[in-house]
C-alpha cells in the first residue's frame, strides 16, 4: 500500500470531468485545476463526437443534406432542419404555402417543448431530485407520439422539404395537440409547485453561475443563457422569420444573471410555446403544403447566404457559400451551445465543483451539437 498523497497548502491538482461523466450529458471533457473543492482554472476539451457535418455538406446535394441537420441536436432537431430549408428557400426564391409555414411553426414549438421538458427533468436529476424526470418524460412522450404520427420519426426528424412539408397533419394530430395544451398547462403548475418553489432547489441555483450581459456579448451567447442575463434577444422577435410575426407571444427575460434565472426563462418559455401552438392550431389555414413551382434539382445562385433561427438552445445560424452547383461550396453551421459552452471556462473560475456542475446544467448542453 502506498502512502496517501499529501498536498502542500496552495498546491493544486488536476481533475478530469468526463469525457464519460453523467453530469456532462454526453462526451464532454473538462480539465479542471483544483485547489481543494475550488476550481482554479478550467479547460474544456471538445471533439469526442465530432463528425465533420460541414464536410458532408460539401459532398451532398442540398436535399441529401437534410437528414444531417437533425443529427446535430437530437433533442430539438426540427429547429435545425427549419433553418436549413429556410435558407435554401431564401436563396433559391421558393415561395412556401401558408399552411406549411403554420405547421412548421406548430411542430417546431412542440419540439422546443419536448426539448425543454427533457432538459428540465435531467437538470433536476443532476441536482439530486429524481422524480420530476419521470413526470417530464411522461409529458414529453405525448409530444413524441404526436410528432411521430406526422413526421415518421421520434427524434431525428426529416419532415420539412424545400418549399413545404413531407406530410400533411391530420385531424388526429390537431385533436391530440388541442388535448395536450391544457394537460401541459396543468403540468407546468405542478412543476412550479414541485421544483421552482422548492427551497433546497432555489438555494442551489440562486447566485450561482453569474454571467454578465457583457460576457454574453463577448462570447456570443444566445438563447436562455442571454435571456437569463437580462438580454431581450430572441431571433423569432429580433429577426422575424416564418409566420412568427402572426403570433402573440412574449420573450421571458430575467435579470439575475444566475442559474435560477436561466431555469426560469426556460420554464416560462414552455408556456409561450403553448401559446404559439394554441394560436397556430386556431388559425391553421387550408390549402396545399408544398410549393407548386419548385425546381426538381435545387441549385443556388452564386453567392454567400445566411439564415438564423431560434432553436431550443439559442440562435442557430447556417451559411452556404454557393458556386452555382447542386451542392454547397462551403457550408458552415453556427451552433448556439458552442458559444454558450465557451464561456463556461471563464465563468466557473473560483467556483466550487458541485456549483460548477449545477451551472453547467443550466447552459442546456447537447454535445453532438457543439462538436458537429
Amino acid at each position, binding site marked *: 500500500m502506498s502512502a496517501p498523497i499529501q498536498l502542500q497548502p496552495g498546491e493544486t491538482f488536476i481533475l478530469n470531468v468526463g469525457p464519460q461523466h453523467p453530469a456532462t450529458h454526453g462526451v464532454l471533457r473538462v480539465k479542471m485545476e483544483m485547489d481543494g473543492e475550488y476550481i482554479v482554472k478550467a479547460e474544456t476539451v*471538445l*471533439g469526442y463526437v*465530432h463528425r*465533420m457535418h*460541414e*464536410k458532408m455538406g*460539401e459532398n451532398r446535394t442540398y436535399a441529401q443534406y437534410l437528414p444531417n441537420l437533425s443529427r446535430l441536436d437530437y433533442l430539438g432537431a426540427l429547429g435545425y432542419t427549419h433553418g436549413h430549408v429556410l*435558407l435554401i428557400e*431564401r*436563396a433559391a426564391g421558393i415561395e412556401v404555402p401558408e399552411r406549411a409555414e403554420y405547421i412548421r411553426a406548430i411542430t417546431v414549438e412542440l419540439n422546443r417543448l419536448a426539448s425543454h421538458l427533457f432538459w428540465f427533468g435531467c437538470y433536476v436529476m443532476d441536482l439530486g431530485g429524481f422524480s420530476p424526470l419521470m413526470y417530464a418524460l411522461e409529458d414529453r412522450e405525448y409530444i413524441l407520439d404526436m410528432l411521430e404520427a406526422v413526421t415518421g420519426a421520434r427524434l431525428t426528424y426529416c419532415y420539412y422539404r424545400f418549399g413545404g412539408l413531407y406530410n400533411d397533419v391530420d385531424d388526429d394530430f390537431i385533436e391530440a395537440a388541442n388535448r395536450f395544451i391544457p394537460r401541459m398547462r396543468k403540468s407546468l403548475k405542478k412543476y412550479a409547485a414541485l421544483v421552482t418553489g422548492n427551497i433546497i432547489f432555489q438555494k442551489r441555483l440562486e447566485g450561482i453561475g453569474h454571467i454578465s450581459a457583457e460576457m*454574453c*456579448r*463577448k*462570447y*456570443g*451567447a444566445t438563447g436562455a443563457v*442571454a435571456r437569463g442575463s437580462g*438580454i*431581450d*434577444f430572441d431571433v423569432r*422577435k*429580433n*429577426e422575424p422569420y416564418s409566420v412568427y410575426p402572426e403570433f402573440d407571444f412574449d420573450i421571458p427575460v430575467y435579470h439575475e444573471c444566475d442559474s435560477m434565472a436561466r431555469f426560469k426563462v426556460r420554464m416560462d418559455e414552455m408556456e409561450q410555446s403553448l401559446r404559439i401552438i394554441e394560436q397556430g392550431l386556431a388559425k391553421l389555414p387550408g390549402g396545399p403544403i408544398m410549393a407548386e413551382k419548385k425546381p426538381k434539382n435545387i441549385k443556388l*445562385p*452564386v*453567392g*454567400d*447566404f*445566411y*439564415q*438564423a433561427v431560434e432553436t431550443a438552445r439559442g*440562435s442557430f*445560424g447556417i*451559411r452556404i*457559400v454557393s*458556386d*452555382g452547383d447542386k451542392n454547397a*461550396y*462551403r457550408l*458552415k453551421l*453556427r451552433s448556439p451551445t*458552442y*458559444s454558450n459552452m*465557451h*464561456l463556461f471556462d*471563464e465563468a466557473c473560475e473560483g467556483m466550487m465543483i458541485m456549483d460548477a456542475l449545477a451551472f453547467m446544467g443550466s447552459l442546456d448542453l447537447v454535445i453532438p451539437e457543439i*462538436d*458537429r
Partner: protein
Amino acid sequence: MIQETTREALQSLFAESAPAVEVEAGAPRGNGVITRDYNAHGYHLDAQVAADQLVAAVEIIDQAGFFIESITGVDWIKENQLEVIYDFSRYDFDTCRVVIRTRVPRDQPIVPTITTIYAGANWHERETHDFFGIKFAGHPHLIPLLLPEDADFHPLLKDFKA
C-alpha cells in the same frame, strides 16, 4: 440606424476610391463595404478588408455593441486564396448583421487574432485553424479543438484527400 453608422465607420478604413456598389455575382471584388439585400442574403453589411485592417474593423464593430456569431473559412483554391469570414449581430431590435471577410494567400495563411477584442473568438479561431490551417497570429492557445490532438491535416481544404 445602426446600419448606416456602422457602414460609415467601416467605410472610413478605405480610401475614397473603394467601390461601395454591389459587384456582379461571382466576380472577384476589391476591399470595401457593400450593403446587401437582407431578404436575399440574410445579412446587411458585407465588408472585405485587408488582413492588417482586420483588428481595426473588428474594434469598430465591438465599440458599436455587436456580439460575435462565428468565424469560419473558405478555401478559394482556384484563386490560390483562403478567406476568413467573421459574423457579427446585435442583441437589440435595431437588426443589423455584419459580415467581415479577409483573404490571405494559401501558402502563407496568417491573420491577426481578435481574441483580445472578443474572448469568444478563441474557439472559433482554433476551429478555423483545425479545418483550414489558417494561423491566427497572437492566439494564446492555437491547438486542435475538434480534431484529434495530434492532427496535422486540414479537412476542409479543397485539395485534402482522406
